[in-house]
């Protein structure tokens, strides 16, 4: 039962990955791509790690650390990338 739940979680996570990464290919603005990428990528990765956590609960310190660093770093990185890219655009025009 728990095995099936973890597979379903990982499947949903990979679906989120594809959903968030697909807009990268188009010709949209950087901020649009950044938004879809940071939201869907972080959510998908966290779902995959939770699925792994259900599968092997023995390694919980490592996986909880992975979830925490995902949640904190991807948010900060998204903010910094948005700040840097929008700043150069303003000075460029």
């Amino acid at each position, binding site marked *: 039962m728990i095995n099936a739940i973890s597979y379903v979680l990982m499947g949903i996570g*990979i679906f989120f990955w594809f959903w968030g990464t697909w807009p*990268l290919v188009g010709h949209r603005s950087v901020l649009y791509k950044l938004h879809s990428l940071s939201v869907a990528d972080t959510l998908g990765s966290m779902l995959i*790690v939770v699925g792994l956590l259900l599968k092997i609960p023995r390694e919980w310190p490592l996986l909880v650390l992975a979830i925490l660093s995902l949640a904190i770093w991807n948010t900060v*990185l998204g903010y910094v*990338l948005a700040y840097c890219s929008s700043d150069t655009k303003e000075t460029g025009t």
Partner: protein
Amino acid sequence: MNIILISMILALAIPIYEACQDEDVWQKMLAFASIASKTSIMILVISVLRDDWMIGVVGVLILSVGNAALMLLAQIIKRISD
């Protein structure tokens, strides 16, 4: 588990393609950030698949230090382009 890994590699191919074809430096940075987080999650999945604790430690290290390095790189690119 193998199907999961194959679909992860397929998802990883999208940002690699984007990093190859796009000339704008911020779009490239975005693709690289995506590649970094996706590869570290793949390393974690492989560590659970092989039941190897050490590979998982490497994945978590890349997850935390690699994103910090990307942040510093973005700051440097901004300083240079200003």
